């Protein structure tokens, strides 16, 4: 049984690392985003292996279902997709690579491996182990972590509003053709409140003027 778990862990680890490496190295940004999704999936699987079921499901729901879709949307809205003929990495990427590799090889890995972690002994196989599930989490959110929970809620709301405010685009490019129903309703509107709404005749010279100015 242990061998199965070890193999599974190995497969998941390799999958995560390969996907992550592809994310940072692939030229096509869409492919990078898709590899990122694969990486999120691998992390979700790792959570499942670590018996954090709720977290695994949340990982899939939020990262795969929402964040990655957001990223894909952003990529498509910014239209820099294929990356043909465009450098994807900065000029200093070897330096960065060296820093990252050195950080991992000389600092993180040796420390993590050599540290005495004093992990409490695992219970023998087969005995049920009390693991905190979603119910305990829910209780925790409304008791000891209530303040933090509220703060995260406020943060999300602020982020929502902020994202809208930042990405909001004035509707500058409006279509100039009315549908039949709109024409109708406009006419009725004018009849109701004729003084407030400017007639199109008045607006027309302005448009023409600005156009001619831009032509010059």
């Amino acid at each position, binding site marked *: 049984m242990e061998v199965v778990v070890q193999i599974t862990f190995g497969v998941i680890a390799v999958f995560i690392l390969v996907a992550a490496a592809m994310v940072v190295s692939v030229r096509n940004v869409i492919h990078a985003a898709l590899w990122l999704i694969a990486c999120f999936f691998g992390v979700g699987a790792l959570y499942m292996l670590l018996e954090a079921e709720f977290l695994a499901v949340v990982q899939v729901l939020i990262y795969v279902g929402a964040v990655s879709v957001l990223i894909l949307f952003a990529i498509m809205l910014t239209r820099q997709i294929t990356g043909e003929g465009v450098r994807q990495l900065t000029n200093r990427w070897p330096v960065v690579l060296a820093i990252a590799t050195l950080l991992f090889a000389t600092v993180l890995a040796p420390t993590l491996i050599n540290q005495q972690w004093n992990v409490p002994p695992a219970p023998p196989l087969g005995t049920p182990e009390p693991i905190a599930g979603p119910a305990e989490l829910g209780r925790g959110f409304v008791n000891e972590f209530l303040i933090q929970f509220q703060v995260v809620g406020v943060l999300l709301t602020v982020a929502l509003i902020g994202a809208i405010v930042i990405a909001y685009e004035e509707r500058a490019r409006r279509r100039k053709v009315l549908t039949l129903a709109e*024409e109708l309703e406009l006419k009725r509107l004018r009849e109701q409140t004729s003084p407030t709404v400017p007639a199109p005749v008045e607006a027309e010279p302005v448009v023409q003027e600005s156009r001619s100015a831009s032509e010059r």
Partner: protein
Amino acid sequence: MMEPPFEIEIPRGRVIEVQRDDSRVRRGGGLLRGMAVIWKHWKESFRLNRSYSQIHGTFTIQYPEEKPRIPEAYRNMPILLYDDETGHELCTSCFQCERICPPQVIHMTQAKDPATGKPVPAVAEFIIEYDACMSCGFCAEVCPFDAIKMDHEFELSTDDHAQLTVHKAQLNRPISYYASIAPTMWAEVRESALKKLQGNIRRRPDVIGIAPHLTERIAARRAELAAQAAAPSPAAEPASPPAPSAPTEARKLTPEEKAAKLAAIRAAKAAQAGDGVTPSAEGGTPAEAPPADDKAARLAAIRAANAAKKAAATDAAPAATGEPTTPTPADDKAARLAAIRAANAAKRKQAADSVDTEEGS
């Protein structure tokens, strides 16, 4: 606020707008109303509906098994009528339909009296290209003798394209058939059509103008009638009339003979039409046909005449001597083709002539 049906004049026309904020469709009520309508349709759809005046019920007709009830005025492809009793076709080859046909798919040749060579108010060959016909029904409307009518038959699909060029033999339908598919429409024209037919029959010698597949039967019946008329003397009976007394056409015409004869007639006619340019010009018609047309017509006529000659050499002459021979089908076909071509050319010529005449006068 305006009244609910809000009417307004815009440059593109007049528009009636239904108010959006109808109180009956507020708060999702409109959705429920729409669903109720569809529910009624679903519920009622298990009942067959054949009345066409109701909006509920299933209209579907299981086509190959069930046939739709076709209204009388339905029109698909033109057919030719013949009289059930006498076997005479109503068509007099007046060329009205050929002229009016928008896609130009009707072709016909007039029958001639073999004895005198004069045209007879009957049709010798009648061809409609069903594949190009657009079912407009102009031919049926224009026909002064009610000879051409629109059929209700619509299962015409075939994998043989040539089959869609339909000849007279396949076009012929008895009047009783048309009376059965369109009783009121036939009743309206019945009197005048039959009266005109009687007039035409009088001008048709022998079996000309009789539907081809009936020729034999009618001839036999006539002979019988003749025999009955000559019945009093029993001595005459053994020398049974058919063979000697009936003219050559009254014999059973083998298809080959028929075709040969037809080709000969057509070729002769074409030749006449082609050659007749000069006589008609001499005969006082003021305008000369435009040279190009004239030439084309002449060429076609010569070609047709040659073909006809060839055909005549092989079988018309033997037929004249009373020796029934079998002409080779290839020749027959060639002759037929030539005849049609010649006829077309002649027709074109004729049309040009008539235009010229009009202009001249």
